[in-house]
């Protein structure tokens, strides 16, 4: 059974947050249509691609946009905008992650669309939100990471902020947008009414920094880098394994976990060691403790350590890079990655939808669309554009 069967979503957006939202809705059965253009192609179509002239070889794009359809419309043209409106009229949801003024410039903002379709649900996902002094500022995942305070605490103890340089905040925004769209869909099912949702990635990100906000509010303290240390737990950290740059993470928050660690590593003498008798003393002697544990872990591979320690009841998980995650037994069993052949990449793998719903599971049904792959289907079959009209629009680069 597909949860979102019969629903149609149209996406105006590129790169990450908007596309991730649309694709996830498609994972659960919605028909999600990307409106894009050769005039300004989605940069993700080229990211990490081996061919910078081909918009269909991007590996990032393949995971992020599976299950979606693509229609090309150059929205700088009035006729394209009119067609976009015709498409929106037969959709349930509009998702957009453009800079805040763009949809309005195109005449596709909520007040206009609502008049045309009163029960429309529209979600805008932007870095800073639709209003406020920074609404027009450039926002990328890492800039939001710095704006929100997260970067200020990423680093080694006593060291400078190093930051997160990858797009984490974009997914944070997508999660908020997904929650919002589904909430709105449920409400529409009950009341017949649509609505508009303004999601700010920065604000959503700050809702995920609860402790740090409260520590400033209550005590005037701003969080600083503390590496992998924990204020009350020891051992708690990363330990080197046999091969270079391989690691295991271990945390012992309960005395029984510490006992299990001592026994499983063959070090019962640690249990009598006055430096390690309770978590407070272990914290005070953390460096020595970490050195001792590291000497043990260095004799094993990460998966071996995990198995030995988890069997004994010690929380321990390896550091995974993507190849390690791909080969991991649990990941294989659970299908974290799926084979999804693509016309430009027959051996392609994509990262699966990570949620497991028992009755309405996610399904990876089709590969990420080639640029404009479904233009004819969307415009002719769905919007009623005739064959002649379609050809004219292609020639005049309105469908482009």
């Amino acid at each position, binding site marked *: 059974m597909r949860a979102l069967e019969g629903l149609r979503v149209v996406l105006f957006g590129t790169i990450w947050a908007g596309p991730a939202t649309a694709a996830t809705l498609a994972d659960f059965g919605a028909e999600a249509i990307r409106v894009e253009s050769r005039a300004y192609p989605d940069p993700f179509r080229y990211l990490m691609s081996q061919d910078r002239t081909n918009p269909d070889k991007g590996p990032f794009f393949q995971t992020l946009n599976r299950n979606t359809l693509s229609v090309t419309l150059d929205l700088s043209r009035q006729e394209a905008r009119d067609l976009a409106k015709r498409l929106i009229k037969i959709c349930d949801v509009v998702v957009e992650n453009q800079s805040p003024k763009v949809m309005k410039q195109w005449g596709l903002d909520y007040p206009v669309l609502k008049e045309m379709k009163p029960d429309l649900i529209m979600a805008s996902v932007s870095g800073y939100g639709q209003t406020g002094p920074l609404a027009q500022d450039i926002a990328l995942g890492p800039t939001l990471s710095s704006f929100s305070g997260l970067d200020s605490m990423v680093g080694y103890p006593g060291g400078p902020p190093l*930051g997160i340089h990858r797009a984490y905040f974009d997914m944070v925004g997508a999660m908020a947008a997904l929650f919002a769209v589904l*909430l709105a869909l449920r409400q529409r099912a009950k009341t017949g009414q649509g609505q508009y949702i303004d999601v*700010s990635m920065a604000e959503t990100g700050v809702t*995920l920094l609860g402790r740090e906000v409260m520590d400033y509010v209550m005590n005037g303290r701003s969080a600083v880098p503390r590496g992998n240390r924990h204020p009350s737990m020891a051992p708690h*950290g990363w330990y080197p394994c046999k091969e270079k740059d391989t690691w295991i993470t271990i945390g012992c928050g309960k005395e029984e976990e510490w006992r299990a660690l001592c026994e499983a590593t063959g070090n019962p003498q640690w249990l009598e060691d006055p430096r390690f008798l309770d978590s407070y003393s272990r914290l005070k002697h953390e460096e020595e403790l970490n050195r001792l544990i590291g000497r043990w872990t260095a004799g094993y591979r990460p998966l071996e350590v995990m198995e030995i320690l988890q069997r004994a009841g010690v929380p321990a998980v390896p550091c*995974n890079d993507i190849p390690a995650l791909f080969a991991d037994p649990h*990941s294989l069993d659970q299908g974290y990655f799926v084979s999804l052949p693509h016309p430009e990449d027959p051996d392609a793998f994509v990262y699966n939808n990570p949620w497991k719903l028992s009755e309405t599971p996610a399904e990876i049904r089709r590969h990420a669309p080639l640029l404009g792959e479904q233009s004819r289907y969307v415009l002719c079959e769905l919007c009623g554009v005739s064959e002649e009209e379609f050809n004219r629009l292609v020639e005049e680069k309105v469908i482009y």
Partner: protein
Amino acid sequence: MNRQPLSDLKVVELARGISGPYCAKMLADMGAEVIKAEEPGSGDELRNQGPFPEDIPHPERSGEFLYLNANKLGITLNLRTSTGREIFKELLSRADAFVSSHSVKMLTALGLDYPSVKQINPKMVMTTITPFGHSGPYRDYKAYDLSITAGGAMSYSTGRPDREPISTPGSQGSYYAGISAAAATMVALYAREVKGIGQHVDISQIAAIGLPFALAASVAIRGEAYAQRFGHRLGGVYPYTILPCKDGYYRFCTIEDSMWRRVVEMMGNPEWAEDPRFESSPSRFDHADELDALMAPWLMAHTKEEIHGLCRRYKVPGTPVQTMEEVVKDAHMNAREFFVEIDHPEAGTWKYPGPPGNYSSFRWQVKRPAPRLGEHNEEVFCRRLGRSRQDLADYRRCGVI
């Protein structure tokens, strides 16, 4: 009237810490009745983690607990007693959704695994959040927050290449799992609304955080180097980095050479920038340490705000690295009225983060502060479940609540 979209929903929460409570909070904030069941005596462990005003620990004054559990009703129930379990199942029978972050083993031992819950309430949407999910070879494995971003391929690219990677601070592994779980729960709640079915929403914290970081699956699996860590920089481009300035740090996110030329212009066209080695991004990256040193004098002569003002003018992507103080005081966030004040009878009045989205059809609001331990025992057991005050006293004496 400000009718909240989930005001028709009853939710039961059996969770401690961050992920489960954050997920349930998103439902509570939309108007759902969320009953949070805590163990008598100590309650949710977050009550003891702080932060506390003036660093004085108090189970009713833990900032993070107060934040994550506003808008909820709080009861105590000892699920190790058979009576406690019976009462809990009664709560489940009248609920629409159930959020739990207990382990599979624990839930099964309590008779609260999904098949058992489905028997009690076939239309239940049951969301579980655990490190590895409820099935698979690692389903009984344990993990603290530091392991989530490690296992989920996020931390490998964080930190310096000559040292151990860094788990994402701020408990991001746990928080991100919470918001993912909320979105996943809404898929199920929508399906329940239109198709009348319940189901199990099984969330693995590690699989969830893997999504943003395992995107270039094909590339990495083919063995191409991807997601290496380079400390304060991103690899292969320059300047995509955090650098010190007069009063803190500034982050640049310039990828294209055209952006670099604007940076150079912004800095007053210094002569060193004409060096042909610095023309293209990959080449600049190869000389990144040298460039950091060359840019330093100009950066150290300017504050974060000054640099940001110039970057905005020259359309250079970048932002100050804000401290939490700057975030809470931020003019933009406050213009949008993002932070909210909540008054709590024990903890006092404090500012808290607000909603992760603004909706046109209703106003997000906080209707009640986080519950004191067992605060709503009478309201829930007597007024909703029809127990008498005498029952309540007996439960208390026998350690059921």
